């Protein structure tokens, strides 16, 4: 699944600035719809440790009314969470009606780490997938809008990022680099991720793969996906979406009649 992802996509500065501004405005509007319609929304960022979701989350939240969203950083469980089922802490942190809950890391992290490091048997892996699907189904049945992002970058990109720190090769989830130097481990990792993406893309919530080699591309893709999903789920077109800047530019030299036709079409 991940092999077929085109990582070469990128954005120039002009497009990036225009799109970020547009989508942030739309997101603002949609976040108020979330509140007005009293629906919860759940946004998940997941991926190897070497790709950070910091900027993506910042682009989402920076211009949002802070009443409408809550961000949960997910590290290793501690305290009372350690003494319960692994999904307990996520049940606790679910967004209530009218709020957008953003998870930096999620219920997928532990199972992937233990799968790749060989601590999770086939049976345990199947159980984890089943429990997660059940969890997401119940959350979606309640009316929660579920959006899941898998961050994916090429090996070269990750090498560049990591070498800046301590010259570590292909570091994923803070494993010692020795683990990642072995091709079998990398393959096990790829297999686990592919299987997980495949088996947990359900009606309740499907994955969007974010090509993260180009930071700007990744940010715009996250924002636009979020806007589209929310807009579809809430059955609400943000006002600013009606003037699509790309279309507007193309239409500008065209005759008045042509633009009139377009308007009629939209009314239908």
């Amino acid at each position: 699944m991940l092999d077929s992802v085109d990582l070469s996509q990128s954005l120039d500065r002009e497009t990036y600035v225009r799109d970020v501004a547009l989508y942030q405005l739309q997101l603002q509007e949609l976040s108020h719809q979330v509140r007005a319609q009293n629906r919860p929304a759940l946004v998940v960022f997941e991926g190897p440790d070497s790709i950070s979701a910091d900027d993506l989350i910042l682009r989402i939240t920076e211009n949002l009314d802070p009443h409408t969203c809550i961000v949960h950083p997910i590290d290793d469980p501690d305290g009372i969470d350690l003494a319960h089922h692994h999904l307990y802490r996520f049940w606790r942190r679910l967004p209530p009606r009218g709020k957008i809950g953003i998870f930096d890391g999620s219920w997928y992290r532990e199972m992937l780490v233990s799968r790749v490091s060989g601590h999770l048997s086939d049976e345990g892996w199947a159980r984890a997938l089943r429990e997660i699907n059940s969890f997401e189904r119940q959350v979606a049945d309640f009316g929660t809008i579920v959006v899941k992002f898998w961050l994916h970058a090429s090996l070269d990109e990750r090498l560049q990022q990591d070498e800046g720190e301590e010259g570590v090769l292909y570091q994923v989830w803070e494993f010692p680099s020795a683990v990642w130097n072995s091709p079998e481990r990398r393959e096990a990792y790829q297999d686990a991720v592919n299987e997980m993406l495949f088996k947990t893309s359900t009606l309740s919530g499907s994955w969007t793969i974010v090509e993260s080699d180009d930071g700007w591309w990744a940010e715009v893709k996250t924002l636009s996906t979020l806007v589209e999903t929310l807009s579809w789920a809430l059955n609400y077109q943000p006002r600013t979406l009606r003037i699509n800047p790309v279309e507007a530019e193309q239409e500008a030299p065209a005759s008045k009649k042509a633009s009139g036709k377009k308007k009629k079409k939209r009314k239908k």
Partner: protein
Amino acid sequence: MLEKVDLTKKLSRADYEARLPGLQRRLRALQGACADHKVTALVVFEGWDGSGTNGAIHALTNGLDPRRFRLHTTQAAQGAEEDYPWLRRFWLNTPAYGEMAIFDRSWYRRVLIERVEGLASEMAWRKAYRDINEFEQSLADDGVTIVKFWFHLSQGKQKRQAKKRRQDSAEGGLTHPDGWKHHKKYNEYLVAVEEMLERTDSKWARWTLVPATSRWYARNLVLETVAARLEARLGDNQPTLERADDSIADDIRKAMEAAESIL
């Protein structure tokens, strides 16, 4: 399913009181062993109104170390609880590893009272069976021992018990404010109960049917069942039972009874 419950089963008060101290000591020792070996238990009490679940819960918790069990009573979801998926409030009350959680009424509310009284939509309660089974399976796979009791009474017995209780206890009759209205709908409830037992009796969370005509019999059965299930789970890690002197506890109870009769 429920017609198979033998409602004539009885245990005399004297026999029950003779067994109780031993049973409670056994449960206390088991509880200690469970804490040491991280054996987690979840005990659910469901039953007809007035079938004596409260007394059974009291008998169960009486000998337990209060630091290691939690008793949760379940009523209609209210306030912030309604802002989340319906099972969340029960997830928050799941027992920590090595502890015991006791639910006086539970998530089964949804397929019983909420179904019959129309408080939940048909789609909501129909979906609930699946949610419940997956919830219990997740916990059981995580090592939680789940014990579920249904306290059974026939409609006639429910009425007789409640009337008797109205005379001789402070609680009086049925506990639910609409208890008597529900009593009239006994047969509607019976359909819901049967379906619940059928659809949520899983190999990871069995129902134990308790004939509740004799409260002494019911209490004894509850304590025995919980003890047996914990013993089975502990396997080789059985606690050693010390012989204790019950005479002091006996004397205290007698003194309490004497004081009560004066009051």
